[in-house]
């Protein structure tokens, strides 16, 4: 394009770029500058020397954390808890959506939805607080146990219960809300499909397995990909609220580990290396999952 053409194309739009400016600046400063800051994972960063002045040490920190027993534990915890959340938590919202979809009494449906959705809007401090209170030595569960003559159990301090508590509390808090997206997908299914099936004598379970589920499979796949991409990011707000030193061995995850090592112990470079590893694995996973989804079902995220 020649100069004049460029100018006429630009003129009516300059204000649009002005609109974009604060947002773009935000993304550059608060999202891309930290990406540049990742360099310190390859340095022995010292706050006094800054990013440009610190010594370059290559992969030293990466080698160190792969040989570190604590990191191995943390990595295993993260994978295990993620896996449990995926295996037990992923199907629940689909189930809730299928069940809610069959409810004909509207007052029941409305009440159920309100009850299911509202925990999503509680912070993890509040919901975690409720969990801690209910499971404490004087809490509801232990009141019931003592009522039947048992001895109180200190749930939050026992290693064997901690992962279950994380998984179950997450399911209770989030599955109701997650079901909305499936309900939306189900409401988009063409009703004539059901009518035709009923004409052919289909039962309810046939309708669910041969019409509803196949119709919402693309939604299911997309949400599965997203969750797979987040497999190393468990939601630091939940674990940070619920865990305590007694259960670090089973409950410490990458996010909380990075926070502790990085900010409490101020090993900036080491913690950044761990964070970079986590982010990179997430990126690779989401690309792989997306590729697989495209190949086997013809639809992915992009």
């Amino acid at each position, binding site marked *: 394009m020649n100069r004049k053409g460029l100018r006429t194309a630009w003129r009516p739009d300059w204000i649009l770029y002005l609109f*974009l400016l604060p947002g773009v600046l935000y993304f550059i400063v608060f999202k891309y500058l930290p990406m540049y800051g*990742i360099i310190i994972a390859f340095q022995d960063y010292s706050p006094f020397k800054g990013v440009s002045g610190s010594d370059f040490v290559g992969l030293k920190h990466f080698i160190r954390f792969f040989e570190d027993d604590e990191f191995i534990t943390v990595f295993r915890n993260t994978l295990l808890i993620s896996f449990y959340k995926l295996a037990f938590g992923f199907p629940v919202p689909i189930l809730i959506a299928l069940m809610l979809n069959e409810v004909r009494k509207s007052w029941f449906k409305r009440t159920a939805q309100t009850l299911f959705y509202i925990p999503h809007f509680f912070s993890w*401090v509040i919901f975690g607080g409720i969990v801690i209170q209910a499971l404490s030595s004087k809490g509801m569960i232990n009141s019931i146990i003592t009522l039947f003559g048992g001895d109180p159990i200190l749930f939050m301090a026992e290693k064997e219960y901690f992962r279950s508590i994380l998984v179950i509390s997450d399911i209770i808090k989030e599955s109701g809300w997650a079901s909305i997206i499936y309900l939306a997908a189900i409401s988009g299914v063409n009703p004539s499909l059901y009518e035709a099936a009923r004409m052919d004598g289909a039962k309810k379970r046939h309708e669910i397995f041969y019409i509803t589920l196949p119709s919402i499979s693309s939604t299911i796949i997309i949400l599965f990909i997203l969750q797979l991409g987040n497999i190393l990011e468990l939601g630091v707000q939940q674990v940070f609220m619920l865990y305590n030193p007694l259960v670090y061995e089973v409950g410490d995850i990458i996010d909380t580990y990075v926070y502790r090592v990085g900010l409490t112990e101020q090993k900036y470079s080491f913690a950044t290396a761990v964070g970079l590893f986590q982010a990179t694995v997430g990126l690779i996973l989401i690309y792989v999952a997306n590729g697989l989804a495209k190949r086997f079902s013809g639809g992915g995220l992009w």
Partner: protein
Amino acid sequence: MRESVSFRVGTFLNYTLLTVFGLITLFPFMHVLAQSLSSQTAIVSNQVTIYPVGFQTLSYELLLKDNDFYQAFGVSLFRTAAGVGINMLLTCLMAYPLSRQVLKGKGLIMNMVIFTMLFQGGLIPSFLLLKELGMLDTMWSLLLPSAVSAFNLILLKNFFQSVPASMEESAKIDGAGHGTILWKIFVPLSLPAIATLTLFYAVMHWNTYFDAVMYISNPDLNPLQVYLRNMIVLNDSNIEMTNNTGLFLISPESLKAATIIASVLPMIIVYPFVQRYFVKGVMLGALKG
């Protein structure tokens, strides 16, 4: 229509299971409410389940006398109001140009935004950035790092794209500039989306606490969630629960429970009025995204 036996059994099971799941969410909450209103002896002897035993309201009275509680509540209110203001202004300003069919550099900016959903610099570099900017221990550290959510931006952009082009044409003929078109046409026509995003952002600001844990060390700037966490997890509170002879007037459990209820109350009051917007908003995201 004739209903078979198996159909009726299925329906019954369906309602029962949904009820059970509803009660699982409801009971812990009722338990905390009951604890907040129960006497110290009842709690210590494990008598409290889902209704108050040895009714008292002293926990609430003590909580409402605590200055730190009001301070934290005020910080959270301010953070939510100012944060949402920044969020909505920036998100609208950015979504409008990006929703246009032709705009040089639009693809580049969209890719730049989407990439931040897939990959992030991480906790430590973000912390060091705020340190460099001198924002640690200021409200800015709670407001600016979450100024635009990529997800919400894309949702609003998609919504703006569905505004009929004819509306804009006629406004242009009347001599309206982009600013007028955005605030007088796009925003009012997208009210469901605007309401949803406002609520999403508000909930995020009200609920997030981990950023305050990392960035804030001045107790006067602690939001409500951090105040609550310190009390529940660290047993850290200035509220005096004993009388002058050292006897417990209320159980610490009861005070924690009362604080949980007081923190959750705003959400419970607002929630019924805004639920339909939330649901609509998520549907929008699901269908368009």
